[in-house]
């Protein structure tokens, strides 16, 4: 207790400690973590199902098959209809807003915790890193489950529309037909969904966490949710 010594500089925590603290937090708050993660899952599932459904539609059109029920739908020759673009854009917006909202809620209800950690000696950077780790993990697992669920949904819809033909012409890999639009393929759509979910979750959580960490602890702790 060298009380009169000049005040030293706070040290950085080893990465393992941050990792342990963040997993502890996810584990104990399991119910709440699941709800936040479910928000990500839903957003990505919606986006991926619409997108994959579209990929399937194009692939089967290319192959000359027509949907048994979508025959009357106006398509722009070959390729994506404006309605499909509209749907994809809408699902993207729903996904972004949904995930940002669920992360923001999850951080806001922990402002007091952030203020308390700063009272105990946490650096701002530690607080941000904690939320980065937690949301990165939630984002990845939530988005992966969502992408798989979304694909499953699109496949079921495809089966209904095209029957077993679906599997002969399934657009698994990227392809570029001579006169058709570029197709990403379902695998790329799943990957993009995962990456997007994770990025949205990490930004949606770290940005409010960073703002809370910058606040003086007295203010962060005043926040009642």
């Amino acid at each position, binding site marked *: 207790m060298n009380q009169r010594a000049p005040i030293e500089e*706070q040290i950085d925590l080893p990465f393992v400690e941050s990792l342990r603290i963040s997993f502890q937090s996810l584990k104990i708050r399991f119910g709440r973590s699941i709800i936040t993660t479910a928000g990500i899952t839903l957003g990505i599932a919606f986006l991926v199902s619409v997108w994959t459904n579209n990929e399937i539609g194009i692939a089967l059109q290319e192959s000359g098959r027509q949907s048994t029920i979508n025959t009357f739908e106006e398509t722009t020759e070959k390729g994506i209809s404006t309605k499909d673009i509209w749907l994809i854009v809408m699902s993207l917006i729903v996904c972004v807003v949904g995930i940002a909202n669920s992360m923001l809620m999850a951080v806001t209800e922990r402002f007091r915790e952030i203020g308390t950690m*700063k009272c*105990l000696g946490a650096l701002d950077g530690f607080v941000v890193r904690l939320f980065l780790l937690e949301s990165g993990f939630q984002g990845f697992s939530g988005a992966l489950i969502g992408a798989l669920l979304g694909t499953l949904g699109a496949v079921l819809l495809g089966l209904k529309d095209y029957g077993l033909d679906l599997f002969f012409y399934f657009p698994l890999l990227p392809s570029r037909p001579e006169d058709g639009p570029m197709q990403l393929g379902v695998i790329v759509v799943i990957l993009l969904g995962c990456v997007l979910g994770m990025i949205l979750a990490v930004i949606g959580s770290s940005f409010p966490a960073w703002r809370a960490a910058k606040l003086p602890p007295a203010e962060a*702790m005043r926040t009642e949710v």
Partner: protein
Amino acid sequence: MPDIVVKTEDVVKEYRMGSNVLRALDGINIEIERGEYISLMGPSGSGKSTLFNMIGALDQPTEGQVYIDSQNMSHLSQRQIAAFRCHRVGYIFQSYNLLPVRSAHGNVTLPMIFAGIPEKQRNEKAEELLARVGLGDRMYHLPDELSGGQRQRVAIARALANDPSIILADEPTANLDTITGREIIDLIKQLNNEQGVTVISATHDLKMLDVSDRIVDIRDGLVERIRNRDEIEIEVGEVGGE
């Protein structure tokens, strides 16, 4: 020469809300000696918590200076302020402010994790501190599973984790019944006596009167008067039946 641990110089704190400015502290000058037990008394809204935040580096004054161990707090870097909060001060709050995801033990080890203390050492220290506050058999319970008095004991153990020279307590007994409150006060007083830790406590709990060395009465953001122990004892007699 007295050993001054906390000194405030014309500390002013204003809160801006839209076009309104609320002057919560209106020029506070106090000096606190090492080892003292000081109570900041005053009605609700008088500025006790605001002063508590200034002394504990939890917020910055609008004007004026705070010196702790002769260091001007406004001259410290972010890292120094974090280290100051980690090593020099133990905070105790009215609403306990335990981290809900960590057990009693986990709450007590956290400031030691921030201080870089090795795992084995901090685990032992946490067990020792929790035993000392009478929670030896509740160490691995989550805060939700503890009573108010027990939570405040965890907060006290946590405040002591890095051997601070100052304990800052903001209405530590306000959410507790009279008997539990008394126990918490006795515990804090015991630390003050045995370890010579300086205690600064905001309160309007009259039970705090007879353990305090001095009482600073705060009113409307100003120090109204400062009373010494011997001046208080007469008054305590009058409220003894509380």
